[in-house]
């Protein structure tokens, strides 16, 4: 088991290294390009040359990568070109805001998705099953940007109940969090519900459930005490992997609602080619993504005795 965890962690480090090389080469392959972006379109050739020399950009690519990697490992990602302050001053606040958003989404989505999935999977092919399945197909067909528009049209323009932007200019405001969370939940819950349904349906067909029903246990006890314990192992992995999707979703939703989070920062940095900020954001994104996958794998092993003891 220790070997398994060590393997997963080693694999995680390897993935991050490969991604860091790809991102670095893509963004910093040509030093002249970097200097132009940092110093702006009006810098003279002379200024560019001085900057390149001063920042070690005349060294070969691999040497620059090693230096960058060393700095990144000690937490120094350089200065943001847009904000003119160290990347760290902006990045972590934004990431914290996104963590609040993501947590709120999971808190709302997981109970809904699991309940619907279990209800649908209990009786495969029933009217309830079909209704829940079709609903989840419809909601996953509406892209996040479209659901933000529909939700805004109903709750902001139509009923005037909620604010249409979530910039949180006057401190934290729960009302401003409602629409972004709703949009993300709407898009994501369908997938988790469908996966839960599949897992539940599979468990319901096993011999031990048939035995439990035939020996006369009350139906709810069969579900709660026997079926759920096995049926909820697979959704655990799905939910953990959903965090990866959430990282994509927040870009759209934060952009639309002007929420000051990680996704909006990444988009702004990419559009305005804030090189050091993009590098930092990419590394954070891949860390969160691979980290949750590793946790999902390890957690799955703990939850599933058949794997744990084999």
């Amino acid at each position, binding site marked *: 088991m220790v070997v398994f965890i060590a393997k997963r962690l080693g*694999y995680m480090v390897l*993935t991050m290294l*490969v*991604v860091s090389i790809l*991102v670095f080469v*893509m*963004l910093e392959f040509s030093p002249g390009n970097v200097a132009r972006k940092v110093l702006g379109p009006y810098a003279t050739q002379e200024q560019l040359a001085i900057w390149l020399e001063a920042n070690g950009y005349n060294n070969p690519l691999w040497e620059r990568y090693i230096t960058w990697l060393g700095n990144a490992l000690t937490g120094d990602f350089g200065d943001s070109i847009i904000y003119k302050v160290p990347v760290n001053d902006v990045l972590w606040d934004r990431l914290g805001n996104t963590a609040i958003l993501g947590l709120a989404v999971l808190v709302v989505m997981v109970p809904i998705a699991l309940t619907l999935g279990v209800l649908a999977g209990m009786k495969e092919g029933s009217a309830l099953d079909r209704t829940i*399945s*079709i609903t989840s*197909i*419809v909601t*996953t*067909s*509406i*892209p*996040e*940007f*479209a659901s933000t*528009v*529909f939700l*805004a*049209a109903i709750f*902001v*323009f139509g009923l005037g109940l909620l604010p*249409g932007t979530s910039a949180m200019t006057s401190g934290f405001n729960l009302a401003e969090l409602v629409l972004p969370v709703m949009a993300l939940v709407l898009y994501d819950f369908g997938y988790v519900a469908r996966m839960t349904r599949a897992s539940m349906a599979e468990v319901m067909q096993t011999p031990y459930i048939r035995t439990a029903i035939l020996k006369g246990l009350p139906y709810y006890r069969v579900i709660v005490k026997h079926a759920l314990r096995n049926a909820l192992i697979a959704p655990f992995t799905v939910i953990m992997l959903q965090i*990866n*999707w959430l*990282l*994509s*979703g927040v*870009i*759209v939703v934060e*952009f*639309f609602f002007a929420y000051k989070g990680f996704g909006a920062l*990444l*988009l702004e940095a*990419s*559009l305005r*080619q804030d090189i050091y900020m*993009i590098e930092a*954001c*990419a590394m954070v*994104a*891949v860390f969160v*993504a*691979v980290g949750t*996958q590793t946790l999902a794998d390890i957690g799955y092993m703990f939850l599933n005795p058949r794997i744990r003891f084999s």
Partner: protein
Amino acid sequence: MTEQTVGGDTDIPKRPPWYVRAWNAIKLLRETTVGMIGVAIVAFWLLVAMFAPLLTAYDPNATIAPFQKPFATVGENFFLLGTDHLGRDIWSRIAHGSRTVLFYAPLATLSAYIVGILMGVLAGYRRGWYDEILSRISDIILSFPVLVLYVIVIATFGASGTNIVIAITFASAPGIMRIVRGLVLDLRNRDYIAAAQTRGESPWRIMLVELLPNARGPLIVDACLRLGYVTITIGVLGFLGLGLPPPDPDWGGMINESRNMAQVFPHMVIFPCIAISSLVLGLNLIADGLREISLND
């Protein structure tokens, strides 16, 4: 086809041409209401894309009368879905925009499938180092959040149709590879593969002619879902300002351009949203219908 004529071919029924088989496949979908609704929605958008110039009265980029609500009449001009802030007819832009989506989404999906299938059959059939390397590469690409990848890559290399297709291929091929690899691993020990190997067929012929056609069932369902997802991706990129360059209409781009006016003129953003959601829904319903049929068999 010479193999078929060896020894008394009179009993072998002739294989119907592809269009007959395609029509039979669509007829199969009639068994599922859901699948038929999907076919109807997708067929609607295909027809709109095909006959866009006939179905619209105005050029999609012509500026006529700004800020008109749906069903507005200005002089002799009638605007079914209203006009946007630059006075362009929204129905014309949606109809012409369907051409963009229905061109780039299948193109990107196809390109991803070609790469993914080649990777998948190679990894599944050859095993060994091919499998090891291709699987590792896919794992790394798949572990990255897709939209983060699209945003960084497309913002760096510039937004254009070609770059969007390349980025989607890059990000989707590993997922397709995994499916194909799994299917091939299951099929590679069948008798007809051994027979082909004994006949001395080349590995590529075995992979593409013997293995691939037998793996098509699950791939067709996946293709429908993926096509829907690629449609969403193209819309999202347009919405984020990373889509095809203006002024040509693109559903995501239309929403992005009118985003700031949505509060006063919701029709400018709602109709493109309905368009893209319905197309994706149609594709997902077809996929669901196909899956249901394959389970019934």
